[in-house]
Structure formats: C-alpha cells, structure tokens
C-alpha cells in the first residue's frame, strides 16, 4: 500500500543530506500547508452535504427554509419516526435488506461455483463460457431493458421480490465470476488434490476445502455485491413498476418521496429517510473500507 511508506520512520538520515534537506524542508512547509488546505477543502465538500442532511433531519420545516447554514434548535427523533411509519421508509428498508441478502447469497453461491469450475477444470467450451460471462461486464444494461422487462413478466415474476433477486444475481455474475476465477487460480492446487486422493468428492472438496481457502476474495466481492445491489435504482423502478408500493426498495422509495414533495412536504422526514439510507452503507464502508477500496478498484487495475 502506498501509505505504508509514509509512516515508516526515516531509515537513512545521513548527515551528508543535512543542509540541502533543511532548505527543502522550509519549502515543503509552505507547499505542505497549501496541500493540506486543498485536501481539507475537498474533504469539506464531501462531508458537508452528508452532514447537512443528518442535521436537516432534526430541523423543522421553517428552519430548513430559513437560513440553510444553521444548526437545529432541538434534537429529537420525530422526523425519523415519521419517515419510518408515514413515508414507509421502514418497509422499504426491510424489503431492501431481504432482497439484497437473498440476491448476494445467491450471487456468491452461483458465482463461486461457476468461477471454481471455470478456473480449475479443463473441458471443451470452458473458455467460451468464461468469455460469455466476462463480456456481460461491457454491455450497457439499457440495451437489455425492454426485453428484460418482458422476460421477467412472461415468467410471472414482475412486481415480485423473487424476480428482482434473480435479476440482481444474473447481472452481478459477470464481475463476480471474473474476480473469483482470477482468485481461485492463485490458490495452490495441492490441497484440493490431496483431499481428492483421500476420497473426497468434487463437491465436498469445493465446499469444505476451496471455499474456506478463498475466504479473503469471497469477502471483498461479497461486500462489493452488497453495496452494488443496495444502491441499485434502475432495476427496481423497472421491475417493481406496478402498483406495488409495499414492495418498493429504498432507493426508489426515497426518490419517489422527493419527486412528490412540494413545498408542503415534510422535508425533515425526507432528510431522515436519506440519513437512514446513507447510515448503513457508511457503517459497512467504515468497517470494510480497505476491502472495499481494493475490491472496487481491482477490476480496473487488472
């Protein structure tokens, strides 16, 4: 990691460098201060809007439409209660947790099975199937939108969570298979072979030997899929477009609250709803930030 070097104590501080170093150090002072200023400004630009949303959930409508840069006068959770009950954000949250839990689990099961077979076994058609999966990463989903709607509808799965789960899984497979087959390739073959020699079946070798060994890779891609599916917007508004508000997911629910909100609307409630959508993601991010950063960028670096 790049930053590790930053925290290493100076390994060579030979006196030969002494004089020019100090001179450089003075310049660094001004440059360093400017750098910190630039970095700080961007940090405020990032955190400011999010913090403002949290604070907004404690304000009253009058406070929100007054001076936007004030702190709320009192802190109570009324707006949060209204968002959960009246605006159904609680329902949307539960729906999303259910859908994302199921579809991530299914994605990981099917994705790791496919990736394992494609990376560890040679058979005719192996490469063709691999490229079939990987090619899915490059197509714009909007091309498939109309037919996808009708495929799901013809299967009787439109406006159902089960349909959304299957579609999320299918569209998460390309990257999952791509990432995990690269990961399975890096694992040593000898352990699996030894298990097979001892009479372990292919299936058991996979679930009891290979999956535990692939745990780090599985964790990064699981988090990646949870975030991606939690944040999905297009698929829910297409697949749950009928009169099924009770089945809506969080992103579409909140976007809808905001669309219907006029000046009469409950703005603190909307801000509470936004905060509720942001907080779980932020908690996951803060806990797993290392895996998330490497997981999200690894596709690009490879």
């Amino acid at each position: 990691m790049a930053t590790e070097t930053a925290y290493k104590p100076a390994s060579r501080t030979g006196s030969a460098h002494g004089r020019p170093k100090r001179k450089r150090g003075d310049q660094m002072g001004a440059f360093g201060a400017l750098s910190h200023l630039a970095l700080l400004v961007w940090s405020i630009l990032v955190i400011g809007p999010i913090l403002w949303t949290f604070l907004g959930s404690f304000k009253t409508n009058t406070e929100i439409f007054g001076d936007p840069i004030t702190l709320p006068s009192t802190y109570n959770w009324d707006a949060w209660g209204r968002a959960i009950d009246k605006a159904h954000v609680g329902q949307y949250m539960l729906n999303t947790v259910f859908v994302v839990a199921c579809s991530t689990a299914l994605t990981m099961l099917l994705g790791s099975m496919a990736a394992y077979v494609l990376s560890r076994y040679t058979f005719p058609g192996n490469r063709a199937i691999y490229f079939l999966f990987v090619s899915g990463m490059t197509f714009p989903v909007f091309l498939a939108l109309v037919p996808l709607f009708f495929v799901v509808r013809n299967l009787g799965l439109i406006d159902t969570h089960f349909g959304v789960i299957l579609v999320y899984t299918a569209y998460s497979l390309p990257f999952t298979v791509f990432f995990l087959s690269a990961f399975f390739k890096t694992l040593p073959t000898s352990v699996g072979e030894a298990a097979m020699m001892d009479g372990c079946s292919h299936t058991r070798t996979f679930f009891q030997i290979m999956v535990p060994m692939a745990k780090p890779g599985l964790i990064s891609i699981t988090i990646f899929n949870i975030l991606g599916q939690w944040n999905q917007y297009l698929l829910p508004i297409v697949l749950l477009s009928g009169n099924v508000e009770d089945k809506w997911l969080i992103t579409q629910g909140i976007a809808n609250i905001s669309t219907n909100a006029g000046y009469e609307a409950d703005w603190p409630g909307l801000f509470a709803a936004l905060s509720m959508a942001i907080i779980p993601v932020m908690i996951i991010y803060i806990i797993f930030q290392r895996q998330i950063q490497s997981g999200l960028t690894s596709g690009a670096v490879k």
Partner: protein
Amino acid sequence: MRHGRYRFIVGFLAAPVILYVVFVISPYLQAFQISLTNWKGISANPQFIGLENYSRLLDDEVFWAAVRHHGVLLLVMPLVTIVIALFFSFLLNLSGGQRGGQMTGIWGSKVYRVIFFLPQVLAVAIVGVLFQAIYRPDESGVINGLLGLVGIKPVGWLIDPNLALWSIIGVMVWQAVGFYVVLFSAGMSSIPKDVFEAAALDGAGRYTLFFKITLPLLWDTMQVAWVYLGIAAFDAFALVQVLSVDRGGPDNSTTVLPLEIWRTAFNFSKFGYASAMGVVLFFMTITFAALTLRVTRRERIEF
C-alpha cells in the same frame, strides 16, 4: 471417476449459466430484433419494419439533444475528474517530501483517502435527492444560502437550461473523484521507489517529478480511468432522472439516452423505438471504448 467429473462440472455450471443466459444474454440479443419492429403497447402485435426506427431517430430532436449531452459529458466529466484525482493522489502519495531518499505521502493521507472515497459507496439515486436540496434555487438551498452570505443573488442551478447540465456534471465529479484518487494511488505505489529516488538525486523538482515521471508511468491506469469514466458518461441515468427538473429538463436540456430509453419504453410503451435507441447507445459505448484503447495506446513501460 471421469464420469463423476463431468457430472460435477455440469452440475456446478448449469444453474449460473441458465440464469445468466435467461436474464442477461437473451435480453441483449432480443433487443436487436425488437429494434426492427414497430412494437407499441403491451399487447399489440409487433410487425417487422426494418430500419424505420433508426431513420426516425435521425429526425428526433430529443434524441440528438441527448447525444449532444453525452458529447459534453464525455469531454468534460472525465477530464475534470482525472485532473482533480491526479492532483490529489499526487499530494497524498508523493508530496510529503523525501525521507531517506524516498518520496512519501502527506501526513494524514489515509484519513483523506477514506473521506474522499465515501461518496462512491452512496447510491446515485440518494445522492440525487441530496443534491436537489443543495441546489435549491432560492436561498434555502445550501449553495445559494452560502452565496447569499456574500451578497450574490440566488442562482437557478437546476432550473436554468444553460446551467443545469453543468450542475449535474458537478455532482458526477463530486462522486467520482475519490474512486480515481484510490485508483491512481494504487498505480503510483506500483511505480518503483528508486525511479523517484534517482530523479530526486538528479535534482528533479516536484513539477518535474509529476509531469515527467509520474504521469508517463501512470499512463495505463489513466487509460483505464478514461474508459471507465467514459462509460459512466454514457449512463448518468439515475442522477438525471432523480436530480433534474421534469426528468431531463428544463426543456430537455439535461436529458440523456438511457433516460429517453426508459421513458420511451415505460412511459410511452414504444418498445421498438426504445430498443433502437438502446442499440445506438450500445454501439456508441463500444466504439468509444475501442477508440480510446486504440488511440491512447503507447508502448508499455516495464518495470
């Protein structure tokens, strides 16, 4: 044994492949076919009409507006994002001065990176709703409220047709920068330290280090960044749909192809026409990616 092996392979591949073919591959293929029909309405009988949808697209003003917006997005958004991200990742990784002949990062670079990356994990739809409040056209919006403090009149960020697209680009950059800071940081850390050491010994200043050494060695990563951002510029659906006035407004000044595809299909039920737009979008995306990779190809620098 051999028999069991093939049974295992088929058993493991069957479910993922079937699911993938049914929900991903088959819709993609059907889209090309549907784009050649006049399919309207859920129950109507579609007829084959050849390339008529495509020739109608040529006269469709909204379609051309959307294409123009992709052009603007494609030029501005990646450029601004990459410049900002490069600047910050250079500050974070290499500007801490030399210690023991090594370039080091600035103090606190880890914390900055965690903060910068944060918008990337938020849903675009949620970010859209959030910025609606920030861009509000009267003084209750955050930006206009701040401008009001220094006596500047409120600006109609999203309601002024000349400004709306730029406001949306601003949000896209806001969300994307962190990702590319992390990406470029990974690229910079893979540049061997002795390259910087040698340059510093030869008396290279910070600007030489950045323009003559870091940039050329980071070329591959930047190429990838450009392709990623370009593909994002062909999307922009969730943000425009949620953030803009009247979904793509005011007066179609922010509309993009994905939004038109969605609207044409699910509001107007013109499935054939929407699919034709999808095919155009597909070829635009593929052409862009292929062109970028081809034009920017350079000799790889091995180290």
